């Protein structure tokens, strides 16, 4: 390009003026001059006004042309050698970053307290009280359950809320909305968001084993759920086991049969009641605790199934939330609804 740069329109002050007037960015000027002819010949504002008036009607087309050009350049650049070299540079840098991160972390680990020792900072008065007083203060045999549902129950409330908010976010992303007639939107189904046409496959082996396994899995899930304060397990694992039983049933028998007992309404109401119960129950206990009042919830005999105050109901509530969330994740991924 051996075009003379002495044009008034190319000077910085003219660019600035034009930019104040018209609004395209000063830094994009190069692209503009590649598409459009230089604006004015004579160095005065009147000519610019004139020019403005002339191109006014075509402004939209020009903007579009600029966008197309920029995009074309971008797409072409994506296949050039420069881009490939840049990608290689990025890979190298990322590897370097990862390696240096590992190095720094290892260096830190070398200074961390030794693994498995008694005299580490974490072995302090906090866990002494959890272990020694945990049984009488929370009534739970499983100290972890007592800790997460009584001492640090606010974290766990947050955690159930994480599940709820995740389920809602996936609903936003994947649910196929019904139109006014209550029919699913055809366009979304055509996009392949629904694979209902795969079912029912009526796979004998699958259905037979599901018949046997589903009740066992569900029973085991309920056992883990109800046993959370007595042994390993609790709301999260129990809920996940329950949902895996439901998913197995769904896969073997199809959405129609599963939809008889699990609909969107049921999901919302179960979540509503479980989380609402959790929130209200814990709010009561937080309020009582913060204001120095006795909550008056009996702890029962440690070791009995009906013991340790609120922990078992809370476990059940958490379990229901987890089961519903996981099941609805699966159902939404499969067909965008229940």
């Amino acid at each position, binding site marked *: 390009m051996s075009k003379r740069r002495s044009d008034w329109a190319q000077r910085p002050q003219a660019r600035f003026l034009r930019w104040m007037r018209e609004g395209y960015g000063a830094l994009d000027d190069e692209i503009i001059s590649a598409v459009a002819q230089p604006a004015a010949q004579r160095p005065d504002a009147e000519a610019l006004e004139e020019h403005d008036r002339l191109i006014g009607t075509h402004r939209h087309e020009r903007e579009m042309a600029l966008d197309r050009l920029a995009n074309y350049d971008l797409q072409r650049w994506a296949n050039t050698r420069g881009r490939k070299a840049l990608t290689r540079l990025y890979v190298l840098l990322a590897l370097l970053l990862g390696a240096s991160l590992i190095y720094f972390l290892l260096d830190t680990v070398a200074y961390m307290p030794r693994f498995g020792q008694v005299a580490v900072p974490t072995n302090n008065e906090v866990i002494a009280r959890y272990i020694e007083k945990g049984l009488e203060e929370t009534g739970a045999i499983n100290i972890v359950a007592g800790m997460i549902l009584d001492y640090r129950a606010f974290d766990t409330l947050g955690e159930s809320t994480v599940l709820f908010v995740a389920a809602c976010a996936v609903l936003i992303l994947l649910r196929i909305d019904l139109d006014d007639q209550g029919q699913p939107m055809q366009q979304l189904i055509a996009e392949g968001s629904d*694979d209902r046409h795969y079912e029912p496959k009526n796979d004998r082996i699958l259905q037979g084993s599901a018949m046997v396994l589903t009740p066992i899995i569900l029973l085991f899930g309920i056992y883990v759920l109800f046993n959370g304060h007595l042994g390993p397990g609790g709301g*999260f*694992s129990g809920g996940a086991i329950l949902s895996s039983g439901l*998913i197995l049933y769904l896969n073997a028998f199809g959405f129609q049969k599963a939809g008889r007992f699990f609909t969107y309404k049921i999901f919302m109401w179960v979540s509503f009641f479980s989380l609402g119960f959790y929130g209200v129950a814990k709010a009561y206990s937080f309020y009582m605790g913060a204001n120095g009042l006795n909550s008056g919830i009996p702890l029962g005999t440690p070791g009995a199934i009906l013991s340790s105050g609120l922990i078992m109901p809370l476990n059940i509530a958490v379990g229901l939330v987890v089961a519903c969330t996981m099941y609805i994740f699966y159902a939404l*991924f*499969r067909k965008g609804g229940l």
Partner: protein
Amino acid sequence: MSFVKIALLGMLIVCALGVSLTRNLLTSLIIYMAYSLIMAVIWMLLESPDLAITEAAVGAGITSVLFFVTLKKIHAIKGDRDHEQAQK
């Protein structure tokens, strides 16, 4: 430090590298499942049965199911597409 623990920890690293280095998505997913299961065993060794049961149910179970159903959605599992074509 028992031999089993060292072997398991070594396998964790191998699995993590394997996820990145395999070509097939399904393979890397299955390697990730193995990774989760090994993690569950390690938690059992670290005397945290609560974690082990949760990791086995949530990490290796539900997460993998979600991954698989996604792969099915994006037709990365080959059988499905054939099935679809056969139906048409």
